[in-house]
Every structure is written in C-alpha cells, then in structure tokens.
C-alpha cells in the first residue's frame, strides 16, 4: 500500500518549546529536519523528528494529537505565533509542509492561557472546557423519555445556524488566540447551538448563567471584541455568536432578578 513518495525537497528547522512538567521552566530547542516531502503533514514532521530523537536515545517531544483529520480537537500547537498555524479554518493536524518554504525556521509552542496549564512540552490541560460544559452545556433529556423526532419542527435556517455553532471542536484555539485568554467564543458556540433549538428553551437561562459563571471562575478573561478567536478557529465559528451570548446572558440575568424563585420541587404526593 505504501507508495513511492514525492521527491523530498524541503529542509526546515523546528524551534520547539520543551518543558518537562507543569512546574519546571521551559525553553526553546532547535531541531533540524532535512529531506521532507511537501505532502507530509505537520504532525508527521513531529513524528519523524521524534523517531530521530528516540533513535539517538533522547526523549521525544510530547504533543497532543489523535484523529489527524481536524475533528477531535486534540491537537493544539501554536505555530509561528498562530494557534493551529498558517492555515485558515484548519487544525494543527491539517497543516501540510507545502505551507512552508525550504529553509524556514518554524516556532512551535503549546496553546498559552492561564486556564490551560502546560502538562509537558506542547501538551496543555484543557479540562476547564469540560467543567464549563458540565455546568450547563446540555439539554436534560433522559434516554427513553423523548417524543417523536419530528414532533417539534425546527425551521431550516435555525437548524443550519445551530449546526454552524455546534461545529466547535473544543480545541481551545480561541482562548490561545485571545489576548485576554477569553473562552467567550467556545461558550457562545454551545449557548447558541442549544438556544437556537426549541428543545433548548426550558434550560436556556439557567444554561447561560451557569456556563458564563463557571468560565469566569476558571480564570478565563473577558471579551474585548478583537475577533482573533474567530480568525484562529479551525471551524471558523463566527464571533456573531458572542453577541448572541451577551444578549442571552443579559436577558437571563434580568429575568432571574425579577422572577420569583419557585417554592421548591418534588415531594408531597403519596
């Protein structure tokens, strides 16, 4: 199955952030990478460099990756200062060496944000995103209790817009690209996806308040409308959703201030 490759004609230097652990100091280390094919992916370049390091008895560069087709959101390198590198609307794993010129030095760092501490080398801990989801990024629907799928029609434009927002892969590039390390685009995408659908209405206010509250508590910064997030997003999710998030948040805050809290739930009967 393996075919003869295109003749290699690229030589690159990788300047990679090496950091042994969260509390150890990090530094840049240069690695020469000669004889590369332009059809090689950027992560395959890291594979090749790592195999070379291993053969020399050195420890390879730790980097996060999995599906290598731009959908799992695991890969997370800042390449030449841009989260996910030089492409537009692609993740790190979808960068191919044809994006670079022979002789280039490529600077590779982890996504940097206070809420994403470095674990090792290029690997960061993005568990904060899971915590935001756990606070409210869902529609409560127990298996077995759902009505027929066509019981509630959803206008196509709303479904399409919800899908645009739902395309988020949870990589964190929006946070890494933002000078405030804000997670507003990530939160806005989930709040908009669920808030645009009829199924998402009952928990709409609770959801936005809980997700924004958790986002703030986890140390993400605020939004100052620079839109770097959308530019870095591998799914090109629009910053318009942030405006939608702000509207939802404001409305929910006002409603929650004026609505009497229910007296209590459960109990009683029987």
């Amino acid at each position, binding site marked *: 199955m393996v075919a003869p490759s295109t003749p290699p004609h690229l030589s690159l230097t990788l300047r990679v952030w090496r950091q042994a652990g969260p509390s150890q100091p990090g530094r840049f280390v240069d690695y020469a990478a000669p004889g590369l094919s332009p059809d090689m992916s950027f992560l395959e370049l890291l594979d090749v460099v790592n195999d070379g390091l291993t053969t020399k008895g050195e420890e390879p560069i730790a980097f996060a990756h999995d599906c290598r087709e731009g*959908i799992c959101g695991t890969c997370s390198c800042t390449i030449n200062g841009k989260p996910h590198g030089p492409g537009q609307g692609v993740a790190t794993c979808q960068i191919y060496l044809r994006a670079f010129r022979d002789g280039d030095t490529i600077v590779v760092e982890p996504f940097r944000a206070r809420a994403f501490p470095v674990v090792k080398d290029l690997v960061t801990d993005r568990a904060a995103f899971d915590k935001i989801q756990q606070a409210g990024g869902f529609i409560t629907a127990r298996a077995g209790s759902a009505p027929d799928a066509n019981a509630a029609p959803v206008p196509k434009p709303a479904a399409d817009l919800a899908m645009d927002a739902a395309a988020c892969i949870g990589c964190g590039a929006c946070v890494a690209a933002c000078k405030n390390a804000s997670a507003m685009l990530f939160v806005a995408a989930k709040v908009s996806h669920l808030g645009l659908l009829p199924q998402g209405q009952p928990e709409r206010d609770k959801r936005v308040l809980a997700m924004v509250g958790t986002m703030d508590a986890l140390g993400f910064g605020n939004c100052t409308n620079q839109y770097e997030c959308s530019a870095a997003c591998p799914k090109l999710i629009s910053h318009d959703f942030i405006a939608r998030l702000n509207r939802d948040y404001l409305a929910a805050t006002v409603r929650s201030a004026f609505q009497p809290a229910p007296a209590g739930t459960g109990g009683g009967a029987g």
Partner: protein
Amino acid sequence: MATLDPKIPSGPLADKWRKHKADIRLVNPANKRKYEIIVVGAGLAGASAASTLADLGYKVKNFVFHDSPRRAHSIAAQGGINAAKNYQNDGDSVHRLFYDTLKGGDYRAREANVHRLAEVSVNIIDQCVAQGVPFAREYGGLLANRSFGGAQVSRTFYARGQTGQQLLLGAYSALSRVVGAGLVELHTQSEMLDLVIVGGQAKGIIVRDLVTGEIGRHAADAVILATGGYGNVFNLSTYARGSNATAIWRAYKRGACLANPCYTQIHPTCIPVSGDYQSKLTLMSESLRNDGRIWAPRKKEDGRKNPNDIPEADRDYFLERIYPGFGNLCPRDVASRAAKRMCDEGRGVGPTGLGVYLDFSDAIKRLGEAGVRERYGNLFDIYHEITAESAYQTPMRIFPAVHYTMGGLWVDYNLMSNIPGLFVLGEANFSDHGANRLGASALMQGLADGYFIIPYTIGDYLAGQKPGSRPSADAPEFKAAEDHVSGMTARLLGIKGRQPVSHFHKRLGKIMWEHCGMARTKAGLAQALREIPALREEFWAGVNVPGSADTLNQSLEQAGRVADFIELGELLCLDALTREESCGGHFREEHQHPDGECKRDDAGFAHVAAWEFQGAGRTPLRNIEPLNYEFVKMSVRNYK
C-alpha cells in the same frame, strides 16, 4: 473451554426483545445506588451507557485515555446514522432495516441481535433530537434523510458531514450533565491496562494515569468495555492514532473470547497513500457515493493522464456496470474489492497506480457547484487540504483503506461476554454486523447499545449480585493484576533497544495489509503467521522506549499498544486462515465465484469463531457458536 450460550430469547423474531425486557430481572431504585459500574471509553457507546446508567441511579466511574470524553473517535464519523423511521414514505420498515443489515453482513450475524438493533434505531433519533443534535432538515422544519450503501431506501439521518461529531457531542453533553451532578466520576487520561477477575467474575480494572504514571486499582460490581475497534493493527487506517485494542486484548488474555477477528472492513473511498511517513488515512464519506460516480480508465495507458482529458467512451463506471441494481451504492466490501480489481488489472490512477476516480462532474451539472458544496463542501475542503487538488475541477482519487472491525469480544444477547460481569458495547463487541457493516450503522449500534440495551440487560446481572458484595481493591487479585501491569511497564522501559515503537507498528501494518487485507490466501496467511512471531521477538528485544514511568510518556503508551497489536494481528491471521470461505470483509481468494464475488460455505462456516486464550506461546482455542437462521433464508448476496 468457554461456555458460549448466546441466550437468545425464544418466540417470534419481532417479539423477542419486548418479551426479554419483560422477563429479565430488575434492580429496585434504592438498591441501584449501591452498585458501582465501571465504563471504559466515552465514544458513542461508552458515553451513552455511562450517562444512562447514572440517570437510572447506578454509581458510575468512566475512564478515558483522552484528555476529554469529547475526543473519542466516534467524533470522526462523517456520513450518518440509519433508522427505520420511514419519514420518506419510501417503503422502509424495521424489518427492512433488519434484513438489509443482516444481508449486508453476509449472513454472519445473529438474527435476534440485528432485529433488536433495527427496532431501537427509531428511539435513537428521538433521543438525539431531544438532546439538541442539529440534524439536517427540510424547509418545512422536518428531518431530512439521504441514501447509503446496501439499501434502496433513504433512511440515513445526518448533520452535514459531521454526523458522528454531533451525535458524540450529544452523548458527551448527557455525560457532562451527570458528571456535573456528581453522578459519574470521570477519569480522563486514564488508560485501562488490565481487567481484574475475582471469583470468575469481572470486578475491576487496573488503570494508568497517563499524566502522573500512577497505577490505580478500581473495583466495581460490573465492568463495561466500550473501547472501539482494533483497525490500527494495520497501522495505516482511518482510525485515530490513539485508537487501540489494549482494553479488549487484556480482557482476552484474562479469558474473554475474541470473536471473528478476521472480519475487518476496508472502506472504498479514502484518500490514497502518498508516502512512507504517512500516519493516517483520511476517509471521504460514503455519502459522496450518492452523487459521485466511481470510474477507472478503460485503457491502462490512461492511468497517468489528466482525467479531464479522458473521453467519456474511455471511462469505465465499473460499479454501475457490474452492479446495475445498486450501482455506486453497493456495500463497502463489494466496492472495495471492485476498485482493487481495477488496480490489479493495471487500470489504477494517480502517481502510484493505486487509486480510482470519484467524479462529481455529473452532479455539478445537475445541482450546480453551489448545490454540491452545500451537500459535501466540508469533504471537498478536506480533500483539498490533503492533496492540494480541487474536486470541483478534477475527480477525486480514492483507494480503499481499513476503516472498521466487525469482530470483537464475544457477547451474548445481553451484551455480556463469557466472563460474567464483563459487558462489551459498540465496535468493541462483535455482535451486530456479521462479516461486513453497512454505512451509517456503526453510530446506530453504538448508541443502541448504550442508550437502550445495556440499561436493561445489566440489571439482570446485577440483580444476581448481592448489594455491597463487590470485592475491595485491596483483594489479592487486584494486587496481582497491578504487579502484572507494573512488570510490563518496567520491561518495556528496560529494553533500551535501537528502534522507535513506530518502526514495529509500520512493519506489522505492512504484513497485515499485504497478507490479511482486501484479499487473503492460505499461503499469504501462513507467511504472515511466520513473520508476526518473528516481529514480536524483535520488538521485545529491540524497541527503544525512552523516558520514565512516572510522567507523561507517549512512547510508553504507544509501546504497550503496539505490543498488543502484534499479538492481536497474529490471532487475526489465524482466524482468517481457519475460516476457509469468503464472506463480507473476509475474502479468501481460494473461495470465490467465477465473477470474483464471495463464496460462502454455509455448511462449514455458518458460525461465530470465538477464540479463547490458552496462555502465552500456546495456540488459542477456537470455540464455535452456531448461527441458526430461523426467520431469514441465507442466500447469496446479490447487488446486481
């Protein structure tokens, strides 16, 4: 010898599941919280099971090797999910979905399991819509459908080319809700490295924390594996790089039978390999075959030509020619072998000669470029990123690649393995797809198992376990398993050989692809069975795993997984050698009809082969579960 009782309920096919649900034992709500269930994996099957079991009141621990449950490889499924809703009014029904799936699997699956799958398919769509999965819709606001291979109705629901992502994010949101509510204890970056058996029953697992290296023991009343398939035994595949067989392989080595490992699926429409550095093959969704036409040049010398310069008369639309009934939408195994035959005849295209064309020029004439972009834009973008070619202007080049494994741990009708208390869901089990899976059926099975089957069947097992009777993690069986895991880690780190792990994985992949890929022969398999043990020896003498055990060490993770793949690859070849017939994804060149189609041997092989570990260095035992077809007549698959 293992006892393999499939526990198929009696009675008419369409009543079995309903009757079974009414007959099996229940656990009362107050007792449910006294049971702890371990779920390994958080793909469609694992996340749906963990969240549903937590909602029922069980205490659940969920383990994933990823940094977040949302990264499981279900996320990469593109095309869609089947369900017998018949919203299109085109003649679909539960029976037809059942029949298509059984026939698509080349009559090597259990009737009762497949029928149940078709029955609950309709509930899955309801459940996903309720969770907010943004399926494609018509202008009236109702759900849209498209066609997929192996069916003559449109029953596939989809969310652009990201259906797996949206279904997984739905299951992940359900899981997140119960994690947030404190009902599920989530352990990310935690890899299961052994199964713990106490008193003949599965009662816990040994886990390595991938960040700290710490080895942990976890006891439970039942263990669920939902850890996916083993396609990375071929090294190059459409799987994620991290997808691995370690959980199921270690369970196998503890006595769980592995069924039909030779049933592997080669997907016809993937982007061809470009070089030996390649780490991954990328799928172009089967949905593309709705509008794309597959062809190869009639003349060998046209293989290197610009396809747009090859006149219509010199193009061979070989699927439409050979299979006029299903055309470009014939099942995956059939389409893959046809493409291989074209390349074997020297009519392959592209720089390597290993490729055929998937052409959209007719669709663009019919729908306009914008229409094609709306349906498949993201797939065309992926193709462009990888190849730097525009499929709007020139046909895609595609070639088959490993995509799915129908084989897996043996389970009964309750999805329980031959080890009591060990349940296996989704791609990790073997139960529903026979020798070939139809497109858009993997998502269906994963969610069926997690949302609608295990919540019922696990209760039947737990009702027989006294509440509070689970062993302590200090029991000697846990200590022994932990020592075993630590010993293997120390051994891998101590070899200090010359070659990185990838070297051995690539070599294994080449052996597997060459001798156990799309076409298999007795001589080739025998050759593989000589080469793989030699490779295993070389691995354990010559692999270099740098670093230490007490930190994030990706080389160490990969070394353990590849060690398991080498062993599993050997069993896969042995299974393929023993199954002297062709069926679905398992094609033995010795057993074919004159036109090159699969020649099954129903008298000799209408059974499940469930392999049982007999100790290192000893030939595993081949147990048999006969497949009794009560309701459907086994016939020769015909897509012509």
